[in-house]
């Protein structure tokens, strides 16, 4: 019984350390995309915290670009289908019945506005881009500023 109490105390203390480390995007399925594909060949993954990007102050920015991997695109779409729950769809482009571009405005969490941007292109080469953004500024302002015309 004494041993159980000791292990319980240690476990509770460790819990108090681990729980605060959880981030606002840990509840999202797209997190699995970054974990699974982030360090693979043919993939570029970026994570920025508290940096200015494109003249805009973003609390958190995470993106992944995957080339020549159709299964990754399917996996991302499945993750987005789950993360869509409760989100507002700003844009969706469907080609041949398959969504190739999805912009989602997620419910706010801890005073942060959250966005997910997904795009798939086939030319000149198959390429998938997935971006997750957190910002204290309005989502509309963030979208308008960062999505500049080519």
């Amino acid at each position: 019984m004494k041993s159980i109490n000791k292990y319980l105390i240690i476990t509770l203390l460790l819990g108090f350390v681990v729980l605060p480390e959880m981030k606002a995007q840990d509840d999202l399925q797209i997190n699995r995309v970054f974990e699974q594909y982030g360090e693979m060949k043919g993939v570029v993954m970026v994570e920025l915290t508290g940096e200015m990007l494109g003249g805009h102050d973003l609390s958190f920015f995470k993106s992944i670009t995957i080339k020549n991997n159709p299964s990754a695109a399917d996996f991302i779409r499945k993750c987005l289908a789950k993360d869509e729950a409760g989100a507002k769809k700003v844009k969706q482009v469907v080609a041949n019945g398959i969504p190739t571009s999805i912009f989602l405005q997620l419910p706010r969490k801890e005073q942060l506005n959250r966005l997910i941007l997904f795009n798939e292109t086939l030319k000149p080469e198959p390429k998938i881009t997935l971006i997750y953004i957190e910002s204290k500024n309005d989502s509309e302002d963030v979208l308008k500023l960062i999505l500049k015309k080519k």
Partner: protein
Amino acid sequence: MKIRMKHTINSIEADRLIEKYYEGMTTVEEEKRLQDFLSRPGLPERYRPEQAIFGYFFQKKQKKDFSIFPYIRWASVAALIVFTVFSLKTLTTQNQTNYAFVDGERITDIQEVKSQAMSSLRNISSDNDEVDEGLKNLNGNKLMEQQLDVFSGLE
């Protein structure tokens, strides 16, 4: 003045008491005297089994004193573990704040990381006003009017 002498038994008496003990006929006083006899140093080997038996029961009867030190020791071990885990997490998190992985290779140069981020944003940017239209629909202010306007010209 009465001087009370502690009655100590000899080996003959001890053998008799041991036999009586195994028969379950000893009194508490007799068991105590037998225990005192068996706790003497230098006893013959033949008393080893009885010494073991009485030694076990003697330990069991001893009352353990409560001590807070074992709990303090465990609390200090737990605090050390927490401190170590927290320190490691803080150090590693700081190192992972701004980074990029390109083909599995980690980059920490902030300018290079930002450049990669801007590149990913360019992949997303649209050529038309779909985003503006989407945002307007999101507000939903004039959505119904727009949709009904489609039918207004039909007669």
